[in-house]
């Protein structure tokens, strides 16, 4: 698995080495940045975890209070109040606005509740009796909604962040354990190949140099021998060249000689 398969399939050239090196630099920087992002997200995540736990616990109390308020209202205003309420439903006056918050490039949805329009439409409910209790109950439930909306936005952030952290960590690990080793292996491979090429070239040059030197030496020896022969012949009186010429003259055609 390691070695051959763990590198990119490239032609080992100097250009390619530069390209791969640039990619390694990019991968390293990306890795550092993603690591930072993951850390930032984790910090946020832990804060949200703590908040969720405390809000969930407080939600229990709030719901208990509001249920009690409803029971009070029912006791005072009579049980048929619920039919009045159920019939009075037309349009929601309590709505949720969502906006997004940006944490290290991750968009977290945040909910805000907003009471708009006629919040007084249930005003006449329980006019005959128990109006105050009904209004108190209403206030209690609005408070509960407040907490629930906050909890919902926390929970949504929790799920989104969880997902974002998972993907970020996956990317960090992929860069660290797959991309970077592969690039490093490629670089060492290219360097090795280039070194080998250089050695080969050097060897060839050496070989040629040696060949040339031997050739020159051989020529020098021949030249020296010839010089020595010539010198000897000059000492004997007749040069090797002239004697040769003389011989050539006898064998060649002479106009004076008739036969």
């Amino acid at each position, binding site marked *: 698995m390691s070695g051959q398969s763990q590198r990119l399939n490239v032609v080992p050239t100097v250009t390619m080495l530069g390209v791969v090196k640039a990619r390694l630099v990019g991968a390293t920087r990306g890795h550092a940045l993603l690591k930072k992002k993951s850390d930032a997200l*984790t910090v946020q995540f*832990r804060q949200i*975890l703590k908040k*969720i*736990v405390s809000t*969930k616990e407080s*939600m*229990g109390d709030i*719901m208990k209070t*509001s*249920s009690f*308020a*409803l*029971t009070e209202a029912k006791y005072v205003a009579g049980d048929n*109040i*619920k039919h009045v*309420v*159920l019939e009075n*439903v*037309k*349009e*929601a*006056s*309590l*709505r*949720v*606005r*969502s*906006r*997004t*918050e*940006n944490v290290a490039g991750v*968009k977290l*949805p945040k*909910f805000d509740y*907003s*009471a*708009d329009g006629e*919040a007084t439409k*249930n005003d006449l*409910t329980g006019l005959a009796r128990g109006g105050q209790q*009904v209004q108190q*109950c*209403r206030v*209690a*439930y*609005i408070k*509960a*909604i407040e907490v*629930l*909306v906050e909890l*919902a*936005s926390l*929970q*949504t952030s*929790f*799920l*989104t962040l969880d*997902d974002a952290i998972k993907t970020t*960590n996956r990317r960090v690990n992929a860069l660290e354990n797959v991309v970077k080793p592969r690039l490093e292996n490629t670089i060492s491979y290219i360097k090795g190949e280039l070194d080998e090429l250089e050695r080969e070239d050097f060897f060839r040059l050496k070989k040629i140099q040696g060949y040339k030197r031997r050739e020159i030496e051989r020529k020098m020896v021949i030249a020296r021998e010839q010089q020595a022969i010539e010198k000897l012949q000059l000492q004997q009186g007749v040069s090797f060249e002239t004697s040769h010429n003389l011989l050539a003259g006898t064998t060649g055609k002479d106009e004076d000689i008739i036969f």
Partner: protein
Amino acid sequence: MANRVPIPANNSSLIAMIADEDTIVGFLLAGVGNVDIRRKTNYLIVDSKTTVKQIEDAFKEFTTREDIAIVLISQFVANMIRFLVDSYNKPVPAILEIPSKDHPYDPAHDSVLSRVKYLFNAESVAGDRR
């Protein structure tokens, strides 16, 4: 805050409810209820006659409707369709399990809270998550 992008379609969303009558009445009193032109409500009252199928359908409808941002569901109702609630993992709409009057709240059943607790424990024990 330059990169805070408002979502125009979700600018004002509803809160849906699947719960017992008392809880629903309370929230309706607060002004959460909504009835559209086709007499479709954003809440489902669960009583002894409500079938699991009805709850499932309501849950599926609320989680797919675009104008709903939060679904409040009573925990005893959530327990009836636990498999649906647990398999739901989209961030919006958010599913919130709420306690009801007759059924005390049990944090162990809450799908999100159990995950939170699990992560919390893992964190405090191992000191490092994942």
